[in-house]
């Protein structure tokens, strides 16, 4: 009776062991496959994200390309503009020929009173250009005496008659009238003021000057009482370059 049961128990053990091994193997395989699925899923998500980003960039670049193509043609198809340029260049050449007798090789200054610009030129070559400020054209009337002053810069051909560094300004009557202050006698030392005319001064005669200015923001618009105002740096260059006798053309 015992022998058959032992055999049966032995068979059972064998079967159980086989099943247990199989369970272990399949369990391991299952774990492994789960790990693989997790890794693959993460990779797939990353690749999809990269694809989405690339698609977004492609779309943005296409839009940018479309915008660039929609910009107007930056060079005009109509060549008329170029013909006008050529015509102006020929006129400039004619004018240079006309003026060459007076200006070729010479150093001179041109003050454009309308554009508020000053040019230092040699021949027809511009050595320096700068913003300036000319007379503002106002009329000042002294109600007490009826005297009037109109602050304009005259047009014409002047010459540099004198130059000075650190000039003093003898304040005129109109300056006191403008400020509403009593006018001192003509020879009063109170009239002498320093620092008002800047570091340098070029006299054009008849009381008209090229000089510096306290507030350079006023340059580029008519703001003076008749003189030509210039910024500190261009004034220094002009002072150092233009000798006495240099022609100064004030045009409008």
């Amino acid at each position, binding site marked *: 009776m015992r022998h058959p049961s032992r055999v049966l128990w032995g068979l059972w053990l064998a079967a159980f062991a086989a099943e247990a091994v199989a369970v272990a193997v399949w369990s391991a395989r299952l774990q492994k496959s789960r790990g693989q699925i997790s890794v693959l899923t993460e990779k797939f998500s990353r690749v*999809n994200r990269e694809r989405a980003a690339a698609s977004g960039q492609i779309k943005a670049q296409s839009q940018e390309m479309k915008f660039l193509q929609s910009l107007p043609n930056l060079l005009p198809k109509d060549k008329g503009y170029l013909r006008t340029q050529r015509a102006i260049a020929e006129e400039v050449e004619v004018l240079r020929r006309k003026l060459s007798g007076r200006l070729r090789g010479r150093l001179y200054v041109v003050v454009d009173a309308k554009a508020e610009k000053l040019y230092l030129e040699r021949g027809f070559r511009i050595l320096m250009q700068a913003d300036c400020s000319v007379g503002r054209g106002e009329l000042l009337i002294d109600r007490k005496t009826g005297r009037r002053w109109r602050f304009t810069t005259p047009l014409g051909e002047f010459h540099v008659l004198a130059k000075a560094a650190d000039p003093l300004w003898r304040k005129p009557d109109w300056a006191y009238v403008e400020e509403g202050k009593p006018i001192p006698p003509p020879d009063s030392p109170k009239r002498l003021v320093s620092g008002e005319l800047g570091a340098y001064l070029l006299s054009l005669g008849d009381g008209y000057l090229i000089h510096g200015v306290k507030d350079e923001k006023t340059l580029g618009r008519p703001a003076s009482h008749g003189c030509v105002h210039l910024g500190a740096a261009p004034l220094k260059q002009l002072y150092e370059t233009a000798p006495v006798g240099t022609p100064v053309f004030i045009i409008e």
Partner: protein
Amino acid sequence: MSMDKNRDKPELAAGRLRRFAPAAAALVLLAAINALRVRLKSSALANRRQVQALSQNLDDAQDALADEQSLLDLKKDELSHAKSAVLNLTRSRQALYESGFELQEQERILQKQWEMLSTYLQIDTASGKISVMRSGQALETYPIHDFPPRAFGREAAPLPRIVRIVSKERYAAPERGKSEEVNGHLEWQPPQVGTSARANALGEFVMFTNSALILHGPPKSAKDHAAYPHYCLGLSWPVARRIYKESFIGEKIWIADRSAPKTPAKAKKRRATARVRRRLRRRR
């Protein structure tokens, strides 16, 4: 005997149960572990199939990503070229416009300088008229109100042939401006300092020349005008205003005495000068 049999039946059943229970448990256990194995196997096989499918999808996705990145690189190159082309076009346009503006600026300055240098006034003593001239052509001609020139408080001077305008003043100021060096400093006195009265003498529009001659409009006070020592040509108010506006500092005033007979020598000289000028113009 029958009573013993009846009493032994449950004990027999219990005994048989005790004998077969372990076997039954073992069978149940074996069945359970077998079922577990089967379940694990099917799950593992299903997962393997899923892994294969995912791998295939991943490969496809990676291929598509590679294609899209190639396309992106191409687009980047294309866009970079297009931007570079637009930048070059913009710079060319800017250079074209800037050179155009420079040319226009030059033309304006040269034109104004030419007008200034070629414009002069001409006084015809025979007709008593003053003309604004440019390059030998009369642009405007006006009568001179008071001609010939008159001297007040001084001797009359002979009219020079050519004078230049050196100063223009509107509402002629009492004093002229001056600059002088004092103790090493240049002092500038603008024209409006002082108290001497010449404001009423010369009127609103005054042009001083480099001679004794002054051109001016009607004086504010005839009495002050007569009392102020000067030598002048009187103009009417509209003519003075016009001449004042059209003239420049440095402008020449030619005083042509057409009434005087021209000497042959002068005429010869004039003709010779005109010939030389024509030759020079042709050479240019």
